[in-house]
Structure formats: structure tokens, C-alpha cells
């Protein structure tokens, strides 16, 4: 049985096609879900793709967080369904309170579009199980607002509960100032929710799936996601 992945489309999303292509490349089915839809009952997983939802007016992801579909995503996530937010999708998850913290303008106000090294910090989640902890992978970033911040209490909690999924690092896996592309607190590139079924990340794993374009280091995120569906 093939699983079905919902790829949510907001006005201003622009990476939904990449997500669908990557999911289908790995042998699963996906379908676009419009931001006004309120029923995710037919789906096994949800992807919030990158882009500029609602023009990112007010703040990145701020208006999208109040769209009708996000009620359904909140409900889907609370029942343990896997949710992956990529780039703008991560910003939307933070604005809607599904993940803690916020994403500010990059340090130095530089838009960064470049492949980066990431250290996998946990394989204990529906979305990172196909990686090995400590593994260094290369995935592209493409954002202006990826500078993660949260309160010191939240940071303690994220660290203590093994909820930092990825950190920016150099090719050897060391966390250095130079390898942090946007000034993110503690070099954080992606985090998990308490239930470990919601992952938000700034890098674009869907652009690192096909060896012909951008390498294959992002495959394992989608493979983890798809594996969790067939084994449940």
C-alpha cells in the first residue's frame, strides 16, 4: 500500500513542486492541499514547503499560521501524524506554536543560497530515523530569515530532550562560527516538537534527493518519513 503525503500550498509557496517531485522520486504518492482546506483525513503525512506564504507580510509565516489548513495540521500533529516544515514551512510551524522559538533575519542581513554541512543530532524521530547520529550531510539552504532564536529555558529544554535535529557544522562536523550561515542560536538548523513527530528545518532536503541535481543527502529525511508510514 502506498502512503499519501499532503503537500500544503499557501498563496506564495514556491517549493511545493520540489517536494512532490522528491516524494514521488522515492516511490510515494503526494497531493497538493490548498490553504483553505480543513480536512487532512485522507493523508498519512504532511509537508509544509518553502516559499513566501502570504508574501510573508508582517513576519515570515505569521499570516499563514492563521490559515484554515493550519487548524487541521495542528490536529493532525496532535494525533502523532508526521509533519515536516521546510524553510518557510519551519517559520510557519514556529509562528503557529507547533514548534518553539522564532526565525529572524540572517546575521549580517545576507540572503544565503548555498549548500551547507549539517550534523545529524538525533536519529530518534519519525523524520530522522534513517540517519546515523553524528553523521555529516550536505543540503542546500535558501533563505533570508533562518536565524533561529528561543529563550534560554527553551534552549535548555531542546537540548535536554534531544530535540535539536540538525546543527550547521563544517565538513568534519565541528560547530564553528564560519560554518553557521545565518547566526542561528547554538547553530540550530532544525528542531523537533515534544512528540518527535513534527520537524522544522531551514535547509531543503527535497532539493538533495536526485543525484542529478544537488546530491542525495536529503533522501533519508523523506525515507524516514515514508518508512514510518509503512511500518505503522
Amino acid at each position, binding site marked *: 500500500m502506498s502512503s499519501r503525503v499532503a503537500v500544503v500550498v499557501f498563496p506564495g509557496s514556491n517549493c511545493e513542486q520540489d517536494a512532490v517531485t522528491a516524494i514521488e522520486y522515492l516511490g510515494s504518492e503526494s497531493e497538493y492541499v490548498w490553504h483553505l482546506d480543513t480536512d487532512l483525513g485522507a493523508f498519512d503525512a504532511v509537508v509544509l514547503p518553502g516559499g513566501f506564504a502570504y508574501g510573508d507580510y508582517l513576519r515570515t509565516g505569521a499570516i499563514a499560521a492563521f490559515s484554515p489548513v493550519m487548524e487541521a495540521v495542528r490536529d493532525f500533529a496532535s494525533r502523532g501524524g508526521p509533519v515536516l516544515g521546510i524553510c518557510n514551512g519551519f517559520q510557519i510551524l514556529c509562528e503557529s506554536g507547533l514548534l518553539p522559538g*522564532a526565525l*529572524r533575519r540572517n546575521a549580517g542581513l545576507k540572503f544565503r543560497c548555498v549548500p551547507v554541512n549539517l550534523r545529524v543530532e538525533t536519529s530518534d524521530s519519525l523524520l530522522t530515523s534513517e540517519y546515523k547520529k553524528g553523521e555529516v550531510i550536505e543540503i542546500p539552504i535558501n533563505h533570508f530569515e533562518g536565524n533561529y532564536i528561543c529563550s534560554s529555558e527553551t534552549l535548555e529544554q531542546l537540548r535536554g530532550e534531544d530535540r535539536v535535529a540538525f546543527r550547521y557544522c563544517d565538513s568534519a562536523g565541528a560547530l564553528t562560527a564560519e560554518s553557521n550561515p545565518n547566526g542561528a542560536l547554538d547553530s540550530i538548523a532544525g528542531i523537533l516538537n515534544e512528540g518527535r513527530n513534527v520537524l522544522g528545518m531551514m535547509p531543503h532536503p527535497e532539493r538533495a534527493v536526485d543525484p542529478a541535481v544537488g546530491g542525495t543527502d536529503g533522501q533519508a529525511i523523506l525515507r524516514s518519513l515514508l518508512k514510518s508510514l509503512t511500518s505503522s
Partner: protein
Amino acid sequence: MKFRFAVDVMPKKEISDPQGQTVERALPSLGYPGISQVRVGKRITLEVEADSEDAARDLLERASERVLSNPVIEEFEIEAAESSGAGR
């Protein structure tokens, strides 16, 4: 009645402000030395329809907390603006 307000949304004091820092670093090289403590926020002007100024302010307070600002990184201040727009 309509009441006019301005909401100033600023990055929280305890949080670094990448925009402010970048502007501050650029100013001396553009010929404006001696400027520090630069912080960049936004000002939202609006009108609220309500029975009283208190009711209007109360509604705006809630909207600012939930929508106009992100309490994780920002703080806001509501200021009553002149309600007559004459001469502007």
C-alpha cells in the same frame, strides 16, 4: 466611534537585532560616525471601531499580542494617535 492608534513593534531588548546591528555597522562608513544602539522595528498605524477608547485599546492589546507581534522576539507599545485627521 473610531479611535486611531499606532503600535510600535520592536525587537526585545535582551535579544540581538541583526537589522539594527547591520545598519549601525554601515553608518560610519557612509560618513555618519558616533551613532550607536540602533534597533530596527516597525510602526503600525490603524483605526479601531469601538464604543470607548478603553474598549478599543483592549481589543488592540489582544490583537498586538497574538498577531501584530511575535512575543518570542518582539515587544510592542500602543500609542493613541490624534483622532482628527484634519490638515494632514
